[in-house]
C-alpha cells in the first residue's frame, strides 16, 4: 500500500504567543515548532498500517523552509520519503490545492491527515483534499481497518460522534481519512531511525497556482476578558485558604 500523510508544523505546545505587528497572525520569530498533534497520530497510524500491509509511507507538508525539520523527524520515525511544498499560504483551500497537485502524481491508496490543526483549527484540510482529488473521505477517525489492500481496495473505519457515540463506515480505496488524537500509541524516533532519516529523500516542490482565498483573516487578537470570577492571589497556602472558605460557605460542599 502507498500511504500519504499530510502533516503540518505548528508552534510548540504552551509557547508564549504574541500577535504580529500587522495584527493578522502571530509573531513567528523566536518560536519553536513541532508536528501538529493529531498529525502525529495520523503518521503513527500510517506506519502501523505499513507494518501490517507492506508498502510505503510518504509524508507531505506545505509550509515555509522550517517545515523540513518536521518532515525529517517524521522520516526518523519511519516514513520512507518526504515531499515539501514550499509556500506560506495559510488558506485552507489553497493548501488543499497544493497538496492535491503534489499527491495526484503519487496516486496513493490511502491519505491520512490529522483532524484539525492546533493553530488555525479549521479541521478541513483532509476533507477539502478529498474533494479536490475526487476521493471519498471520513473524519474524526478512531480506528482504521484495511479490509482489502489489493485492487479494489476497501477500508472500514470507526468514526467518532458526539457524546461517546461511534459509527463504522466502509468505503473504497483510495480514500482520505482525518485522524483523531488517541487512536494509537505514538512511537519515538530511535537513534537508528534518526541516522537513517539523514539519507532519506525530501523532495522540494515549488508552489503551483492556487485560487484566490474566499476569506481572509482581517484581525487576530486576544479575546476580550469577561472574567466574572474571583482570582485568589498570594502564595499557594493563602490562596488555597481563601478558596476553601468559598467552597465551604458559598458553594457549601465542604
Amino acid at each position, binding site marked *: 500500500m502507498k500511504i500519504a500523510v499530510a502533516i503540518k508544523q505548528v*508552534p510548540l505546545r504552551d509557547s508564549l*504567543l504574541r*500577535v504580529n505587528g500587522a495584527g493578522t497572525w*502571530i509573531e513567528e520569530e523566536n518560536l519553536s515548532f513541532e508536528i501538529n498533534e493529531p498529525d502525529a497520530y495520523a503518521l503513527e497510524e500510517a506506519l502501523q498500517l505499513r507494518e501490517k500491509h507492506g508498502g510505503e509511507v510518504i509524508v507531505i507538508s506545505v509550509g515555509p523552509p522550517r517545515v523540513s525539520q518536521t518532515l525529517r523527524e517524521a522520516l526518523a520515525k519511519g516514513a520512507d520519503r518526504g515531499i515539501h511544498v514550499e509556500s506560506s499560504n495559510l488558506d485552507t*483551500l489553497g493548501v488543499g490545492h497544493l497538496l492535491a497537485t503534489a499527491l495526484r502524481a503519487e496516486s496513493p491508496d490511502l491519505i491520512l491527515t490529522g483532524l484539525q490543526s*492546533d*493553530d488555525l*483549527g*479549521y*479541521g*478541513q484540510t483532509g*476533507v*477539502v483534499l*478529498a*474533494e479536490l482529488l475526487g476521493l*471519498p*473521505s*471520513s*473524519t*474524526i477517525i478512531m480506528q482504521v481497518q484495511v479490509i482489502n489492500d489489493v485492487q479494489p481496495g476497501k477500508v472500514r473505519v470507526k*468514526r467518532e*460522534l*458526539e*457524546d*461517546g*457515540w*461511534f*459509527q*463504522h*463506515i466502509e468505503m*473504497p480505496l483510495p480514500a482520505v481519512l482525518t485522524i483523531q*488524537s488517541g487512536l494509537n500509541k505514538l512511537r519515538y524516533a530511535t537513534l537508528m531511525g534518526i541516522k537513517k532519516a539523514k539519507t532519506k529523500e525530501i523532495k522540494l516542490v515549488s508552489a503551483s497556482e492556487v*485560487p484566490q*482565498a*474566499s*476569506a*481572509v*483573516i*482581517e484581525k*487576530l*487578537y*486576544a*479575546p476580550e*476578558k*469577561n*472574567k466574572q*470570577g474571583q*482570582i485568589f*492571589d498570594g502564595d*499557594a*497556602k493563602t*490562596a*488555597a*485558604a481563601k*478558596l476553601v472558605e468559598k*467552597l*465551604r460557605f458559598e*458553594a457549601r*460542599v*465542604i
Partner: protein
Amino acid sequence: MSVLAIVEQRMAGEVLAAAQQFGSPLIAYSIDLPYTADAYTAAVEELIRKVNPTLVVFGHTYQTRDYAPKLAARFGRVLIGDVIAARPPVFVRQMFQGKFNADVRLVGDGPHFVSVQAGAWRAGSAAAETFSPSSTTSRQMAEPPFREAGRAVDLTAADIIVSVGRGIKEKENIPVVQALAQALGGELAASRPICDAGWLPMDRQVGSSGQTVSPKVYVAVGISGAIQHLVGMKGAKTVVAINKDPDAPIFEVAHYGIVGDLFEVVPALVEEIKKAK
C-alpha cells in the same frame, strides 16, 4: 444577504437564531436522507443550486465537519467553521485553541459557508422545511451508531468533580489530583489528552466526545479550557480553575480561580480542606 440554513436535529434552534442574525430572506431546510458525507454533499449542493443563497449556515456539529468543507470546496470556498460571533461579512472564530479570536472577512461572491459554535447563539424556533434530493449515491456505507459497552463511571450523577488536564505532566502525578478529589469526596475526571494517553480510563473523560456533567462544583486542574472540554462542564454550578497561565481560557468560565503551579496549589488545598473539616 440571502441565507440558507441547513438544520439537523442537533443545534437546530441555534442555527436558525444565528442565520436570522446573519441576513434575510432566510430559508431553512433539513435533509431527508440517512447521513453519509457523499449523500449530504450532493443533496445540499442541489439545494444550493436551487435556492441560490449568498450564505449557507450550519451548526458546527461532527456531521457538518464531515461534509461541509467538501461542499464548500466544490463551490471554491472555505467553510468558516465554529463561528462565535458575527458582523457579516465578518465572522469571528477562535484560533490557537481559544488563545486568540480572529475576525475573518468573506471575499468575493456567494455562496459562502459558515458554521456556528454550539452554545454561541440562544436557540430560537427550529422550524424547517424538508428537502429530498432527486437522487442519491454514496461511496461511504454507514452502519448504525453505537456506544462502547458498559460505562463504568457515571459522572453525570456526581455532585463534586475534580478534573485533571495535561498540566499534570505525567501519569505518576495523577495521585496529586486524586488526593484533592478524595478530600472533597468527589469523582475524578479528566480532559481528553489524559484519557488518550491511557492515564485514566475513557469513561472519566469530560467534553464533547466524553460525558456532559453539571455538578455543584467542578474543579479544573491544569486544563486549558478548549471549547470541546467546556461544552462538557459549562453547566456546573460552581467552576473552580487552577492553572499557571493567567490567560488560559478556562478562567473565562471559572467562578473561582487560582493562578499558580498545581503542584504547589493542590497539596495546599488538600491541607486546608482537611483543616476545615
